[in-house]
């Protein structure tokens, strides 16, 4: 990479990353971390300028997985985009489905039956648990704890994916939600199986926490590293566990009360320092809150249809207008912005990707730290390249 490809024009007043001066000894080294670095979770590049071990400049480079998802969405009907949303954040296809269904339901004023709302909450919280467990597993993997924590996380994730498969037919590409409900109903046997899996989750979280929480290496490598300040986090549009780890109490489940989240009691875990450890800890605590929501939701799933019988499926043409629908996805605020001109295809189809926007501050929180910590900081942001590049 040539040095001229990295340029930042200085502009007064903007919330820019701090400028770090070299200590003047030796030469600066410019390294392209990625696009095939194992810690980048896909194809992603960071152009890093190093002064010894210290990072003094970092520019993320995107687009290796870009397939213009938004244009695909505008070239086909509303429903035909639903399976494509699975491929955004392929760890959490069900929350992607929900966000898109919510935006379209807002656009046409579509109601969702009670049973479908319960199923959506159950599936979204299961998604959150498996996402957070895997994220922590990957973080530990990058810390050098090769294999074991990740295998513990994946063992639990597999159980949840089995539930997804038996309900939707697919482990990861679920394509389950529809405008006005869900595609298929859950059998009583599935609800029972879910109860069984959920009853085993607290002991998994306990076990995971016992291994990790007071681990000396984890504390040494995570505490005080990659610190993000709350005012910058809000200004930079950071969302999800990364925002809450800085101590900002903002959970869209509590703010927007979308779906039926106002019926469940749960707390919003907050961090204090905004470092890697807080991000890890917030995810750990969020898994516990998700288990609590699951227990409440699974107690009484009402009977009834899973699809609104009045929902229009064929010849679906929303009247002209626009809507922005957002949910609290495991990685942050996932929003869909739709403009309809009355035709069967959306005039504008926009995805607000939490993974991409959470990377806005990557440079800010990496500057000044060692190059080995960049890998951890990046891992603690929790991104999926399918969503970053779209």
């Amino acid at each position, binding site marked *: 990479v040539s040095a001229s490809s990295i340029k930042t024009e200085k502009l007064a007043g903007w919330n820019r990353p701090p400028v770090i001066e070299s200590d003047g000894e030796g030469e600066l080294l410019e390294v392209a971390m990625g696009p095939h670095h194992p810690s980048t979770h896909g194809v992603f590049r960071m152009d890093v300028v190093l002064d010894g071990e210290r990072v003094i400049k970092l520019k993320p480079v995107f687009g290796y997985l870009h397939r213009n998802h938004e244009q695909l969405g505008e070239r086909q009907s509303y429903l035909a985009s639903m399976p494509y949303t699975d491929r955004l954040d392929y760890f959490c296809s069900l929350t992607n489905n929900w966000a898109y269904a919510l935006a379209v339901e807002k656009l046409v004023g579509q109601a969702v039956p009670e049973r479908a709302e319960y199923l959506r909450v159950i599936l979204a919280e299961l998604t959150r648990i498996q996402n957070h467990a895997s994220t922590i597993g990957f973080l530990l993997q990058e810390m050098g704890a090769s294999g074991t924590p990740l295998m513990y996380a994946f063992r639990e994730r597999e159980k949840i994916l089995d539930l997804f498969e038996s309900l939707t037919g697919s482990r990861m590409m679920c394509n389950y939600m529809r405008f006005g409900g869900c595609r298929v109903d859950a059998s009583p046997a599935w609800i029972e199986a879910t109860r069984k899996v959920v009853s085993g989750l607290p002991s998994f979280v306990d076990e995971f926490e016992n291994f990790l929480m007071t681990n000396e290496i984890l504390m040494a490598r995570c505490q005080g590293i990659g610190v993000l300040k709350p005012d910058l986090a809000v200004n930079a*549009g950071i969302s999800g566990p990364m925002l809450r780890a800085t101590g900002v109490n903002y959970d869209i489940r509590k703010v927007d009360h979308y779906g039926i989240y106002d019926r469940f009691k749960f707390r919003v875990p907050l961090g204090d320092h905004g470092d890697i450890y807080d991000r890890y800890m917030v995810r750990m605590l969020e898994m516990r809150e998700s288990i609590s929501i699951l227990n409440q939701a699974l107690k009484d799933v009402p009977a009834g249809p899973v699809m609104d019988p009045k929902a229009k499926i064929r010849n679906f043409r929303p009247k002209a207008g626009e809507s922005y629908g957002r949910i609290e996805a495991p990685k942050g605020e996932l929003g869909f*912005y739709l403009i309809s001109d009355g035709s069967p295809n959306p005039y504008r189809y926009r995805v607000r990707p939490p993974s991409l926007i959470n990377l806005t501050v990557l440079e800010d929180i990496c500057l000044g730290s060692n190059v080995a910590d960049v890998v951890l900081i990046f891992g603690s942001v929790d991104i999926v390249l399918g969503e970053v590049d779209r």
Partner: protein
Amino acid sequence: LKSVEEIKAAIEAAVPGAGVKVISNPAPIAQHSLLIDAQHAVAVAEFLRDDEDLALDYLSNVTGVDYLDKEISEKVKVTRQVPKEVDGVQQIVDETVEETRKHVEPGYLEAVYHLFSVAKKHGPVIVRFRSANRSDQVELPSLTPVWRSAEFQEREVFDLFGIVFTGHPDLRRILMWDEFKDYPMRRDYVEPDDFEYEPTPHDDVLKRAQEHKAKVAAGEVSQ
């Protein structure tokens, strides 16, 4: 949260001449938006962020929308004087004809910002800015100095729609590669004829490959 009309009044009081227009949204969700004069974008944005009642400190979503030039045809009745032979004598007579007149309403590029408040937990307030046209006057002021979250999103809008955000600290392509020409999310975008053809072309691909080879031979495209 105040209604859009109240926000409009507040903006007009704080930033005189901001030219705020309410764009109503007929969808059931009724998220109306505010169209603001691009000249005053930064002043209005700072007001929205710093005002105590609004406190819109969280810019969630930035996106572009492309509206093509619209050809509007209307039928007009025109009276003209036409030479005509009446009873064997050449005369000039008034004749009314219906004529279709066409004029082009210029298209524009639009930047849409979805604002929320973390402090007050309300939103969205939707703000839009329009460029003068979609060819040579595509500049809009960047709001990255006001909300950092616009940094990558405005780069993406520049990359895919070609809106040039003046005052953006680092306006480069973000998803497409640097050498790429054209803006793929524009409504009139045509895919370039330069993709790699299959090694063993067949059917439709064969036809396109032959057409492409002919173009290369004629020197119309370079590769």
